């Protein structure tokens, strides 16, 4: 295991960096898009609700690999050239945002409807009430499940390996076949994933304690 780190440290670190980069980009965009669709799901306008519903059901129920392969293979053929890294990250954003939307929606709906009514009765508009009254409470409720989604997102970034995205899993496959020591290579890769996900899960736990 140590010899793997010594001989292939550069590759592993580069892979770790790519995984981290992909995860951060995907995390930010998935959170924004997911929250957006979560709000759309609870607005009074039925048209928006249907759009949000369709988006979530489509991307929640298609395997991540299929979405990613679609962007890797089909889009470059007909529309625009995108690299493996980009197609993997886009796939990850779409897939995770659907799950995050469902999580945030459950948070919004678990806020007592009286809060919204009270805010409206005091003269706030729907969006103001959402922004200042409902969402702050909703996010507090959903921190634990959101933490789950974030950790899943980091682990799901291994989908990049299938489209030559140079992430940790890809480097693991390459190193395993090069060094012929599959066991210790994948152990190294597992440890590196732990290094990414453990702090994340501790941070989410800290947030949970602090806010909830």
């Amino acid at each position, binding site marked *: 295991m140590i010899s793997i780190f010594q001989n292939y440290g550069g590759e592993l670190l580069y892979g770790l960096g790519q995984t981290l980069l992909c995860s951060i980009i995907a995390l930010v965009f998935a959170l924004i898009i997911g929250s957006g669709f979560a709000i759309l799901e609870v607005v009074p306008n039925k048209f928006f609700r249907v759009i949000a519903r369709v988006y979530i059901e489509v991307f929640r129920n298609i395997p991540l690999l299929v979405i990613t392969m679609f962007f*890797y293979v089909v889009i*470059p053929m007909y529309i625009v050239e995108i690299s*493996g890294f980009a197609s993997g990250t886009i796939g990850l954003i779409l897939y995770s945002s659907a799950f995050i939307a469902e999580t945030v929606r459950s948070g919004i709906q678990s806020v007592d409807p009286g809060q919204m009514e009270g805010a409206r009765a005091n003269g706030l508009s729907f969006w103001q009430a959402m922004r200042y009254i409902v969402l702050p409470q909703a996010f507090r409720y959903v921190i634990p499940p959101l933490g789950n989604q974030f950790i899943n997102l980091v682990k799901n970034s291994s989908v990049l390996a299938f489209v*030559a995205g140079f992430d940790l899993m890809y480097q693991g496959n390459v190193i395993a076949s090069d060094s*012929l020591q*599959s066991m210790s290579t994948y152990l190294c890769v597992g440890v590196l994933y732990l290094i990414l996900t453990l702090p994340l899960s501790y941070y989410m736990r800290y947030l949970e304690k602090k806010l909830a």
Partner: protein
Amino acid sequence: MKKIISRIGLLLTLLLMVVSLSACSSAASQKNVLKDDKQTKTITWGVKADTKLFGLMDVRDNQIKGFEIDLAKAMTKQILGKDGKARFIQVTSQTRMPLLRNGNIDAIMATMTITPERAKQVDFSRSYFDAGQAILVKNGSPIKNVKDLNHKGAIVLGVVGSNSVQNIKKFAPKARVLQLSDYSQALTALKSGQGDALTTDNGILYGMSIENPGYSVVGGTFTKEPYGIAVDKGQGQMRDAMNNALTKVENSGQYNKLLYKWFHKVHGFDFKGAER
């Protein structure tokens, strides 16, 4: 303070688990594969199932078919006698070594090039097919041979675990190499324009160009890639039996028949050089 200690404790436990896991990798393989196979009258071969001409899964009857499959059947009959059975297990470049070392398969015949590094991990028979590395490009591509790939921005597609990705780094060091999980995926990536050329052994590329007339093999071969049958280290008897069986299959003319059966449709295949 207490919390920090408990956290460090947790990390240490995890590390301990990892270390103890990595310690238990060498086991098994202290048995005589040839003897066991003679008793069960079966040899389990690890073969490719995604490689046209060598080993390809036929979806209509769920059988793997190809040159290597036929050769393996012929050799099984030589080793175990007329009632010997060949069992085929599908492997990839990544899985074949671990499967062999775990004892899940008795021998690998999966377009595996004999290399010194691999010879440290497994025992090879002598070569049963002399392939060479080449490149596959779209018809009308400006790339005519491997030297045309040696510039910044060129992207070469290969397969994880194959020898060819190491070689291409020597012949076209400036090109970027993308390693995909198997040949069909690498071909799909080539078709959707994710790379300029696909590189691997010519035998495999010929199979792809038969299936996809819009793509052709250019520039000839630039390496020698002898395919060998791999058995686990310490199975010298098995390897000797393989070599003997191969010689018998070659001398009886069966080898040339199989070669013709699978490669006669390939445009530009060098029969004189490949016959035994």
